[in-house]
């Protein structure tokens, strides 16, 4: 038998390159030559063991590398104190139709990478903590993979921040806006989201958080697992959410909560829990429709709907007459352009008492009550 062939098979087995046929062949050979067992076992141990290496000072090396780049005149932009803002359009596909193209043009990404360095107030030790911020502009969304494998889909007009301590003891992020989280399970390192006036602690789960500044409510919708919502203003208050439940916190209303011993009085937000409603055959839920570009609205006020449409389309609405805010709409938009969507809304509104006309100037949309507005502008 070809002696080298055995070593070839053993090497392949160790490297994970052996086919099932080769593994069988090796087994047969080993049965005939038991002496080889010892070698194979020892080699197996050796293979699994990482050769001891002195840890490379990669941080220092990186600093040296940056200095070298600087000395060669390669500009990295400022890393220390400024925000570097990069704006770029999503590349349109060649086979795109005009509708999608219009949407894409509206869908510019804005990502702000913020490197803030906090100095702790210790005169002898200056501790620098870089913070990473991902920001999406209206009309665009992005997804990101956190260092532990947790995936976050960030909806339009939102920002997610985390710092270099992420994953050390805790996995902490701060959210403004809307995001869908698929958190990798790790009971030793709880995942905590700070948003608005609440903290959400999870161990490993899938859920959607909607918490835009300037909106009346914060919503947490749980798809799988369980999450714990706490209120920093009130340490005793804790809500555990179960799958298919949605927590709605009204930021505008608070109820006074007098603790039992009447020492402290704290304000807690007004809270309600609803069940998630699933639609159609794919049992889609309204709350995560944005991930498929779908905007669901269920008895939603015109005012709130326009805010959602601003995010979806990357436009700004200006409503001249607040009486329009009282109209409520139910339905969904997906591939419609902003014009098609507005026309659909106008037709619906016509049937009710109210009626409106609109005018698009660039990415600004002006909406008038048709009776009052007709004097000031001409409909298109």
């Amino acid at each position: 038998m070809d002696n080298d062939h055995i070593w070839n098979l053993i090497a392949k087995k160790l490297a994970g390159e052996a086919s099932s046929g080769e593994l069988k062949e090796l087994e047969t050979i080993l049965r005939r030559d038991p002496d080889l067992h010892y070698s194979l076992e020892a080699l197996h141990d050796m293979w699994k063991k990482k050769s001891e290496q002195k840890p490379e000072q990669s941080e220092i090396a990186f600093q040296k590398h940056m200095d070298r780049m600087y000395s060669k005149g390669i500009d990295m932009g400022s890393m220390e104190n400024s925000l570097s803002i990069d704006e770029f359009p999503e590349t349109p596909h060649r086979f795109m139709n005009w509708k999608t193209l219009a949407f894409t043009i509206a869908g510019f990404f804005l990502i702000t990478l913020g490197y803030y360095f906090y100095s702790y107030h210790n005169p002898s030790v200056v501790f620098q903590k870089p913070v990473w911020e991902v920001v999406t502009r209206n009309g665009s969304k992005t997804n990101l993979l956190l260092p532990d494998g947790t995936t976050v889909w960030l909806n339009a007009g939102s920002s997610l921040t985390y710092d270099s301590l992420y994953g050390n003891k805790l996995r902490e992020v701060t959210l403004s806006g809307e995001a869908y989280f698929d958190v990798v399970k790790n009971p030793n390192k709880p995942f905590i989201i700070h948003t608005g006036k609440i903290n959400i602690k999870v161990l490993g789960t899938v859920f959607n958080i909607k918490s835009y500044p300037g909106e009346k409510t914060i919503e947490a919708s749980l798809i799988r697992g369980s999450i714990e919502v706490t209120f920093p203003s009130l340490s005793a208050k804790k809500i555990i959410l179960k799958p298919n439940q949605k927590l709605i916190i009204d930021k505008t209303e608070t109820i006074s909560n007098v603790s039992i011993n009447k020492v402290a009085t704290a304000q807690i937000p007004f809270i309600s829990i609803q069940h998630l409603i699933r639609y159609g055959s794919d049992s889609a839920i309204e709350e995560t429709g944005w991930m498929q570009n779908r905007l669901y609205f269920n008895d939603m006020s015109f005012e709130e709907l326009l805010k959602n449409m601003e995010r979806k389309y990357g436009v700004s609405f200006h409503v001249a007459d607040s009486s329009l805010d009282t109209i409520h709409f139910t339905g969904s938009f997906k591939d419609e352009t902003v014009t098609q969507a507005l026309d659909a809304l106008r037709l619906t509104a016509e049937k009710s008492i109210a009626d409106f006309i609109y005018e698009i100037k660039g990415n600004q949309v002006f909406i008038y009550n048709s009776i009052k507005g007709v004097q000031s502008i001409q409909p298109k």
Partner: protein
Amino acid sequence: MPSIAASRIKYLQTRISRFNDQLAYKELFTGFYSSLIQFVTGIIKSRQSAEEIVSDLFMKIWEKRETLEEIQNLRVYCFVSARHLSINQLEKQKRQHHADIEDYKTKLIHPAPDPEECMISAEMMRRIHNVVEELPPRCKLSFKLVKEYGFKYREAAEILQVSEKTIENQLAIALKKISNSIHFDIGRSIPVIAGYH
């Protein structure tokens, strides 16, 4: 073994390419640094030159960041480039010193024994390490690429610009020699320390 998961590398490529993301660039640099510096040092035997080569390589990555996303396997790409840069450097040295690359012997680096391991195991590892260091250059590089850095045969072949068959053969030779050195120890109850550095 790869220190960054393949999916993370892809993600970092995107971040650097689309957003000029310096933190992603740093993560890539620090993640690849150890294995690249060792790989390059294994070829050119000069720590200082190795540092410059790895730095040059990453400079190139930053400068061509716009097309970085197109690279299918960035780890393989880095090792291929690192090898090219090392060979260029060696040729420069050769012209200067008329030295023969093949005559270079690796400076033996003695790893400190892990206190958690028994003496025999540590001694055996040291012996294996020495056997590996004494292997012919191509054999040693093939072995290290597959074992230490976790590359597939196909990838190692791409990095060293040889056929997969060559990698197979080199690995077989390496394992045979290592196995012989282990056999030497059979039946001995006291670890052999003298004679091995």
